[in-house]
């Protein structure tokens, strides 16, 4: 099984370890993983900012790079959602590209969804001593139905206990450029999320999207919390933290 890994631009730049963790998880489950060297971005920043042209150009580039894979996996609900849900809209006026996009969409998965529903793994390499709480990132949750999958995987990690926070499904306030354009609103939403994380009593918050990760970590540290870990689920499952 040839699996293409969409590293995602944020993982590439900000948290390379998440990419290696995803790679390890897929390889340890027996996948032949290919990481196209020229990949950059799925086009989401342009798409969400109203720049259809740039979204289209980057979507086309991704289609070319991954079309020979049996499956395509991203350690991000929002990037997987871009390919799986939004490419159809990006190419709505282009029958040829639309057909290619739909084919790719059907084979594209968010990482935890792929591990649970396609690979059906029953063991993970990682161990973790302590209590974690899980933040449901918006795109993964509402566009792709990623809810039970990460929890099923966390339950396989020896030593890990999950304590659900209240409002785990409420947006953390990231929203891409929203976080810069509306810094006050975004930070207030992040503050509410951090309060729920703290109230859960967990020593780490685990999640599946880089944007939320940077937002929540940045807010926790600004509030003076230097101990609560902010971890990508791939890192926890692979035992890289």
């Amino acid at each position, binding site marked *: 099984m040839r699996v293409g890994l969409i590293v995602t631009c944020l993982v590439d730049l*900000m948290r390379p370890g998440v990419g290696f963790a995803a790679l390890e998880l897929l390889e340890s489950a027996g996948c032949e993983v290919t990481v196209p060297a020229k990949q950059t971005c799925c086009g989401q920043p342009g798409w969400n900012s109203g720049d259809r042209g740039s979204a289209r150009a980057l979507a086309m580039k991704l289609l070319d790079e991954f079309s020979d894979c049996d499956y395509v996996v991203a350690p991000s609900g929002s990037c997987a959602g871009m390919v799986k849900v939004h490419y159809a809209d990006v190419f709505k006026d282009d029958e040829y590209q639309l057909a290619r996009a739909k084919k790719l969409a059907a084979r594209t998965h968010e990482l935890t969804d792929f591990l649970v529903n396609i690979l059906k793994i029953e063991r993970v390499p990682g161990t973790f001593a302590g209590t974690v709480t899980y933040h449901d990132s918006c795109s993964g949750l509402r566009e792709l139905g990623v809810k039970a999958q990460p929890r099923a995987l966390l339950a396989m990690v020896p030593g890990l206990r999950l304590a659900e926070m209240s409002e785990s499904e409420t947006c953390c306030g990231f929203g891409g450029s929203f976080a*810069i354009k*509306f810094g006050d609103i975004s930070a207030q939403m992040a503050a509410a999320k951090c309060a729920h994380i703290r109230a859960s009593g967990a020593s780490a918050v685990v999640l599946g999207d880089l944007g939320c990760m940077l937002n929540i970590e940045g807010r926790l540290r600004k509030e003076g919390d230097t101990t609560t870990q902010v971890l990508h689920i791939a890192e926890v499952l692979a035992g890289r933290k």
Partner: protein
Amino acid sequence: MQIRSVHFKQRASAAIANPETQKRMASLGFAARRADRVAEFGAAKFEAQRAAAAAVRDRSIGDLATWIERFETVATRRGATVLYANNAKEVGERVVAICRDHRLTKAIKSKSMLSEEADLNLVLAAAGVQPVETDLGEYICQLADDPPSHIIAPAMHKSRDEIADLFVKHHGTPRLDEAALLTREARERLRSHFLSADLGISGGNFLIAETGSVALVTNEGNGRMVTTLPRVHIVITGIEKVVPTLEDLATLMRLLPRSATGQNISNYFSVLTGPRGRADTDGPEHLYFILVDNGRSSLVGGELQDMLRCIRCGACMNHCPVYKTVGGHSYGWVYPGPMGSVLTPAFMGLANALDLPQASTLCGACSVVCPVKIPLPGLLRSLRERQVQARLRPGQEIFGLKLWSFAARHPWLYAILSRWGARVLRLLGGSSGMISRLPLASGWTSGRYFPAPPRGGTFRDRYAALRK
């Protein structure tokens, strides 16, 4: 209503800084009650009902002219007069003309957002007709001279203390501090208005084409009085509120109260057809419908058409983390929250509400609860696209996007830029790994740090080194 959406950011920041506003927003309990009703109804059954409701609305809007014409024919046959208003100003003109014809001097009103679109209270007062809001929340807003901050809980921004102060000031009565007593005082005040008014003005939740009726969903009983006591009743509603049949109305009514207030059914639900008949013991002598366009028909056939499905339940704002942070007044026009962020630029012009389509994380919480499945994040995205096309975004933002897109399309350049970007960010992060000030992104760092990347370079570089 005069549009003030240009002040979105300032108003939002003020709302965030105001602990009382934050407390009021946190008290909004509709979302939890909705969840309970959906669970009782059965989640799968509710989903099927949403699909059916969206189909009903699509059928109405897909052939709007036909259903409106049908409505007019049947309503006229039943003795009502059907008038049209192309814009907000014409709404006022029609109402004032009716007041002149019938020599009306006092209007009691039940809740109507269209009345806000048309600034009807100002227009009525200028024409010598006293407007009295009879919905408790609207009554409070009228006393305070505030616009509503939520489409179904208009005075939710007011605390009980503020309401008590308002009543002392306007009623000249001793201060009360129990909600039940305050409500009783308002009822006592309103009673004389109910009995002395010669005009009743209501909105309309739905118009039913096959019977020429208007359906009203209310909770306080004031709607019944407004529509039956005065000798003239005017219904003001949007042209898109028409549905073909009573059966369609039933489909929508299974969803509206559950989605709005989390009630299985509202306390009052009226279907009104025609003025008082010869055998009737109550009801108005004259019934008018003013069907308002005010920008609605321009959405038909366009990318925003799905917005016309809206049945004004408020679920999108009840579930919106941005609305719950900034409050309804920040949005600056009649409709707040996600639906307002689509309707305001759609009705009032893209350039007059630049922040609204941007002021969303596109988290999707609104669209998954919308009873008529309006793809709100998609519509906001579509408005963002229009902003870019109309060159309404700041040059710096467009330049940044173009630069990003150019780099991302040229992997060799992207590799260099990201390599250097990671180094610069790491340096800025220092020993803590947290960046406290980012040039060009001060919005991020004003309320939080920006975590820096770790040592060792980008994934791309590390992976290439490993493969060698």
